[in-house]
């Protein structure tokens, strides 16, 4: 159905959690709530899965104690969004959160077919939530895209964008804002 003529119902995060609790959405469903829309994630191929494992390992090695990394788990981002980023670096340990964490210090998406979604929609959504740092492990071009410094931009899907984009090749290194003394080789993130 074309979206030009129709307005579809938007869901709040509270309603979304209720859909999960009452069994309308199952843990196996690849669904994320993004800006009120129940978005279906594309199935993951093996390079995608490998990139998640590699990035998890590299980021965990780089972090000082006091952080932990969540893999494809929900983030209570805003009232109408509950994405499940491939990786999210959050302060503290798993027992420190009664609810889903809402402000990860770094979110990482591994992108091949989802590149446009990850750049435009999720990028704008994460920027609107003022997340400090967002990475896209771009498997199409074999680069790491590092996004920082969110700011308003009326042309973006959710009115916000990241103003700074660093595109790093396999031989370059990245220092996460949350781990100022670390230097991660981009090649270590790529499958």
């Amino acid at each position, binding site marked *: 159905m074309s979206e030009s003529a129709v307005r579809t119902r938007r869901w709040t995060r509270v*309603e979304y959690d209720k859909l999960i609790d009452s069994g309308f959405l199952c843990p196996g469903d690849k669904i994320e709530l993004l800006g009120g829309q129940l978005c279906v994630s594309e199935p993951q191929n093996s390079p995608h899965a490998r990139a998640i494992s590699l990035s998890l390992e590299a980021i965990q090695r780089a972090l000082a104690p006091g952080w932990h990394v969540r893999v494809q788990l929900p983030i209570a981002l805003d009232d109408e969004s509950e994405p499940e980023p491939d990786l999210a670096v959050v302060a503290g340990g798993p027992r420190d959160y009664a609810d889903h964490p809402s402000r990860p210090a770094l979110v990482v998406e591994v992108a091949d077919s989802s590149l446009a979604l990850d750049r435009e929609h999720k990028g704008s959504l994460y920027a609107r939530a003022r997340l400090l740092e967002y990475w896209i492990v771009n498997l199409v071009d074999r680069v790491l895209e590092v996004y920082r410094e969110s700011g308003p931009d009326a042309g973006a899907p959710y009115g916000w964008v990241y103003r700074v984009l660093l595109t790093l090749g396999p031989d370059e290194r990245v220092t996460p804002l949350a781990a100022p003394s670390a230097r991660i080789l981009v090649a270590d993130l790529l499958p």
Partner: protein
Amino acid sequence: MSESVVRTRRWSRVEYERLIEEGVFQAGERLELLAGQLVVREPQATPHATGIRLVTRALREVFGQDRWIVDMQLPVALDEESEPEPDVTVTADDPRDFLPSHPARPALVVEVAEASLALDREEKGSLYARARVPEYWILNLRDRVLEVYREPHPDPSSPHGWAYRSRQSLAAGEHVTPSAAPSARIAAANLLP
């Protein structure tokens, strides 16, 4: 959100009815399930409501109460992923037949259209044609005409793969005869607010 890069979850009619039963939606929400999408119905202006009343009155006059039911804005179990609530429907038979589910095959569906004209023509027209609803009217308030659609047939260029082959546009001075009431003659002027 543009749909180019995002695929949203589709709902089946069975799921939709369970969402309603379990009270997931807010009271007073006006929704329709169209081809798996939960579509928000736009608020109605007064001429729209008047149009619905005029159409209902005219159709109740020509369709006898014994064999037909003329309903206003009640759900139709159109297909596995659609449960629209057309402005007016004419359905054959006994209401007790519908207890297990909403009626599925109206003989005539009418939408009163002002802001929703594009949706009613393209999306709903294609959806009703796909469900083989034999006759579909749009009371087009914008141009003050009655659009009469008949003969559903496959049409790959339509949103849902079906369209109506025959389309007539009747101005206020003209008359329409519903296929299911071949001896009736309804003046389009009597339907327009």
